[in-house]
């Protein structure tokens, strides 16, 4: 056994580092490192830089603008970009819709939609969840009725991340009420400028506008926007979930966050000595670090089996559970490190380019908000409870 990357992979890592050195704007990495808000323009800027290099959608096939990287190379790429504090690629078009279109879309659909994801013409959002259909997604009610060469959609989606930035939404809709509830669902692409689509903001507990309700009243969608067969949308949805998710553990993001925590624990002083020398705090840090190192190897083991042609199911659920727990623990330690200074809320310090006087340690400004916001990690993308159900069923037959 050998944990080292091959020479070729190491050379690849160098190439990625050079690229980040040269192309990642400091203005963006500063914002990410300091936990400041990214604007739509910031995210688009980073997408464009990646796209120029052909690295926006590494997991797509080369013919559609992807790469021929191995899963290990993708892992290296994810880790290096996160460690460099690059903005996260917005997943909805690149990581969610793209693979579905590549697998289930018609030739015309692929030709039309895929390039528009890469060049930024379309910003997609994900219309799955509804007020009554969260974990039990298949019970969704938003309906689409075929009328001539259109579907007419009525209903409501909720928790739609960044719908306020999007011009397109992919939706799971009910096209039949017969048979099993999974069998009457279709996958539709909707232009958000269509009359009858309304986006209403939802404020989250940290005060930010990140998610929305999306309402549909008599929204007409051309039938060519159906992906896959009518009433077979659940297959697309499931594919999305089981789609080999090399980055689901967020190891890179955790490594970056942990480095930041270490930096902070070295400078911050509590009762006369550095926080990193506080035995209780140091033990908490060590616990997370050990878990993270273990997770990195678990992740690489899963990637190795994917590289050998296996499809992970329970494994990606395991990566999701432990990966999000680690992320949440790191943000909890950041708030703990801030002591009383976790509590002041300086809205302006969360904006890029803030050069006012911080209150207490400058790094403390976003830590409480991030801690609260990161509760979402164990709720969305299939809650951690639902992931445990998947493991129980698929791996243990229970």
């Amino acid at each position, binding site marked *: 056994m050998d944990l080292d990357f091959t020479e070729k992979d190491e050379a690849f890592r160098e190439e990625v580092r050079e690229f980040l050195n040269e192309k990642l704007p400091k203005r963006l990495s500063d914002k990410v490192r300091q936990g400041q808000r990214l604007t739509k323009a910031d995210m688009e800027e980073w997408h464009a830089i990646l796209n120029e290099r052909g690295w926006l959608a590494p997991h797509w096939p080369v013919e559609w603008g992807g790469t021929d990287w191995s899963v290990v190379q993708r892992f290296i790429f994810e880790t290096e970009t996160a460690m460099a504090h690059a903005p996260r690629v917005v997943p909805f078009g690149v990581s969610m819709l793209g693979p579905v279109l590549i697998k289930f879309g018609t030739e015309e659909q692929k030709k039309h939609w895929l390039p528009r994801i890469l060049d930024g013409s379309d910003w997609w959002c994900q219309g799955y969840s509804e007020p009554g259909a969260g974990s039990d997604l298949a019970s969704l009610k938003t309906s689409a009725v075929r009328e001539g060469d259109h579907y007419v959609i009525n209903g409501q989606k909720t928790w739609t991340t960044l719908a306020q930035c999007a011009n397109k939404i992919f939706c799971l809709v009910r096209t039949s009420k017969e048979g099993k509830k999974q069998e009457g669902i279709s996958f539709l692409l909707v232009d958000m400028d269509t009359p009858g689509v309304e986006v209403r903001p939802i404020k989250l507990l940290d005060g930010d506008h990140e998610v929305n309700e999306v309402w549909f009243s008599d929204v007409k969608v051309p039938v060519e926007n159906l992906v896959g067969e009518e009433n077979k949308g659940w297959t697309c949805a499931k594919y999305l979930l089981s789609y080999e998710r090399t980055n689901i553990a967020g190891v890179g993001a955790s490594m970056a966050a942990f480095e930041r925590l270490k930096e902070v624990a070295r400078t911050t002083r509590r009762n006369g000595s550095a926080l990193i020398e506080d035995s209780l705090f140091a033990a908490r840090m060590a616990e997370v670090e050990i878990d993270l190192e273990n997770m990195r190897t678990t992740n690489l083991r899963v990637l190795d089996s994917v590289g050998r042609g296996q499809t992970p199911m329970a494994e990606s659920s395991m990566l999701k559970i432990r990966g999000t727990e680690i992320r949440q623990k790191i943000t909890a330690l950041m708030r703990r490190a801030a002591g009383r*200074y976790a509590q002041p809320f300086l809205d302006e310090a969360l904006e890029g380019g803030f050069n006012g006087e911080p209150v207490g340690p400058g790094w403390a400004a976003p830590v409480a908000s991030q801690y609260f916001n990161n509760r979402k990690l164990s709720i969305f993308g299939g809650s951690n409870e639902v992931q445990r159900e998947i493991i129980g069923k698929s791996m243990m037959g229970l």
Partner: protein
Amino acid sequence: MDFSLGDDRRMMADSLSRYFADTLGWEARQAAAESEAGFSRDMWAGLAELGVLGLLFGEEAGGYGGSAFDAGAVFAEVGKALATGPFLGTLLGGNILEAAGEADLLGEVIAGSKILTFADDPAMDSNGVVTDPVKAVKEGEAWRLSGAKGVVDYLGSADLIVVTAEADAGWASFLVEADAEGVERRAYPLVDGGAAGELTLEGASARLLVSGEDAISKARALGLVATVWEAVAVMEVLRDATIEYLGTRKQFGVPIGAFQALKHRMTSVALEIEQARSAAINAAAYFAKDPATRDRYGSAAKYTAGKVGALTAEEAIQMHGGIGMSWEMPLSHFAKRLVMLDHVLGDEDAHMARYLKLASAA
């Protein structure tokens, strides 16, 4: 043994509860918590009129309570209503005024005509290092204070500030008028609602209240009791709301509370909250004992409240799913307050460390 609050205290707690229910409905609470002052002046005046603030102090100081259980009973209601306001500053600063025999001044605080706060935590610089600790210097008969204090509750609204400072002869507490020369205040809102501020003193004129650290330690200890009682009340609100949600929210055709994965975790949360309530009772019951015993139980309680608080807040949000994260739901604000209470007067780790020290000395 008697685990009841006692009739008088129960009556006051009930009337406080009714007062909050009548005047501090959810919308009013939110408006107050988000206002510049961070609390409602009208509510404060109403509390003073009710006589609630007097329950925090002894008879000689013009109050009619002053025990740790009195403070606990008041702060439990504050927690239940998620009220914002200078409660803690009034309790701690007032406790020092009481020790100093400043009955007249305290009378004004109890009557609501003066807002009091307590500046004790040191300020930190941009690297997280304690900066510019407050020093007291005697000039003739007068004292002058210089230095900085961090995250002082409701500093922007305060008329009077009790400041802890080091003089040549050791720690002491002083009274500073908020509008005196050499007093600089930078006010800001808090992430869980309410407000605080950074205090900078440059030769501000001050009055010596009590010399020595004992009175300061006692005030902090009383603050621990109050904070823990508040935290437990917040936990109970979160617990009840979550149990109700588990019984009503349906997924897969059944109430989600029917899933053992959630049911058993919720029972663990409920069990831990009972432990936290007992810790709060211990802290109040041993408050009047010798300082070492008092502080051991104070730390035990604050440690427990910190640990159980984070568990309760995190589980309440998790079991609510997406809706648990929305600003609209009171639940998320209770969760934020609960987690932030761990940051007040020393967190779980700080109190575990202090407990270890005290326990090994005992």
